């Protein structure tokens, strides 16, 4: 009897929580609920959007920045966490100290130093933009990816998980069999720590996808701005909110990370259910 009572509390509470969320999302779509249910309204809005409009360009920019940042950031975090968990080397304590330092300083405080150094780079490395291959480095979106390349929190998550899950004798056995370090990492380690990697992918993805500060300061109001920046303009600018594609921008902004969460949910649940203190 007691159990049923507890279940009811949590189910009512979480229903309220989700309903509140749903209302907050649906409300800006249309003025009243009848408009929302009217299929013609939806069709008209989608038909009016044409490929090549600014909305699609912003969307493409966002996807590009987020994909590159997530893949590179997660890779670097995984490599670093693996080397910290499995090897003993001289500068190990230094690296740990640097990671803690990074954890302390939030990315928003990086903006001003970053703007200055980008300015300096523009002055002194201007040949990059004209050299054929290097010109990719002059991409305006490079500045949005760089600050997210070392996710310190992610390194700690993966390291903690790896230390609790990995059997070090397995690594030794693989070495005796003649496997190279890179092969051990690829074939043995990555499959084991995939739940922890999924969490880091999610954190990275959300952080980059929702960030508009770097776009505001480094790119400004131009076609290269990202979707989060465009959605931010809806909040601050009342006239921007009257644009007919505003609700679609808003909901697209929301739907992609939720889809990501649901895609990774199986792995995330495996991470949650793992006992991280089991081997202590």
């Amino acid at each position, binding site marked *: 009897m007691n159990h049923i009572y507890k279940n009811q509390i*949590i189910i009512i509470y979480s229903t309220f929580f989700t309903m509140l969320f749903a209302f907050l999302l649906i409300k800006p779509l249309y003025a009243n609920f009848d408009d929302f249910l009217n299929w013609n309204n939806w069709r008209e809005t989608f038909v009016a959007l044409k490929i090549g409009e600014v909305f699609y360009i912003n969307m493409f920019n966002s996807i590009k920045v987020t994909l590159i940042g997530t893949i590179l950031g997660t890779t670097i975090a995984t490599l670093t966490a693996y080397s910290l968990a*499995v090897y003993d*080397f001289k500068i190990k304590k230094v690296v740990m100290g640097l990671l803690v330092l990074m954890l302390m300083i939030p990315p928003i405080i990086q903006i001003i*130093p970053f*703007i200055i150094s980008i300015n300096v780079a523009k002055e002194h490395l201007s040949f990059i933009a004209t050299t054929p291959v290097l010109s990719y480095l002059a991409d305006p979106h490079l500045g949005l990816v760089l*600050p997210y390349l070392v996710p310190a929190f992610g390194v700690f998550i993966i390291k903690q998980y790896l230390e609790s899950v990995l059997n070090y004798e397995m690594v030794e056995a693989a070495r005796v069999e003649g496997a190279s370090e890179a092969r051990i990492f690829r074939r043995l380690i990555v499959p084991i720590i995939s739940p922890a990697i999924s969490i880091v992918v999610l954190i990275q993805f*959300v952080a980059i996808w929702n960030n508009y500060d770097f776009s505001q300061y480094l790119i400004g109001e131009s076609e290269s701005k990202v979707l989060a920046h465009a*959605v931010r303009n809806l909040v601050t600018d009342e006239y921007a909110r009257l644009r007919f594609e505003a609700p679609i921008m808003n909901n697209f902004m929301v739907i992609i990370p*939720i889809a990501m969460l649901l895609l990774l949910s199986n792995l995330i649940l495996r991470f949650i259910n793992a006992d*991280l203190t089991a081997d202590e």
Partner: protein
Amino acid sequence: MNNITRSKNNGAYKFIAPFLLVFFAVNLFPYFISFYTSLHEWDMSYRFIDENLTYTGLKNYGLFHIDKYFFPTLLNIVVFALCSVVLIHCLSIIVAKLILLSSKKAQGLILIAYVVPYVVNKDALVIGAQEYGIGLTIIESRWWGPIVNGVNESFIATYQFIGFFTLIYYMVLKSIKRNLIEAAQLEGANVWDIFINIEFPYLKNMLYMMIVLSVIMLIQVAQGFKFIIGNLFWMREIDIASAFSWVYIFFVMALFIKISIVRKLIIKRKEKSL
């Protein structure tokens, strides 16, 4: 696994090289340039290195001349952080405990439902909230305005971050040994007794660290903080802005050093009492 055999192989440097490269180029180098800037006068109107920047010493660190809204904004950030920290940690511990009490099949689904607001862009929520009239009270009074607005902002921040911390507290609560709790139940302890005497002491070890983490996360989303940085940027006061960044970094470093000293002292005291 107490006797871990870690190999003393130099292969480690192969794996750590990308991190070190990116860290020094992207994360550390800009700070040195900004420290240099904070000691000089520079408004981005002329080239950084070719011209001779005028050395001003610590003048930029006097922060008082930013504008008349600097201290009200600081008050706004403090109120926002305090309110949100109290709300987030109280609620997320309660929710984590309640989720743990619910049936095992539902737990994963409920947790995922709670994480959704963390994943979602806050601006998308703010537009909806404004339609309902939440968070619209903007009071123009110089000192009461920041306080009321800080409390208002803290509700949205709580809604956003509660899932993330629920997840962490849930994992901690789950790692407590089952036989401890079962023994207490045999002795006749109810849910409340178990929570106060067994589970909360476990959480207390982590609570301080989690509070610091949440403060860092909150400052990142604090509108007041972005207001200060943005104002300085649009006014082209880059030198004062970098001085402000460094003041913030010193402040956080001092906080961390204090934490580590206090922790060491506590450990020493425990060893002495044993």
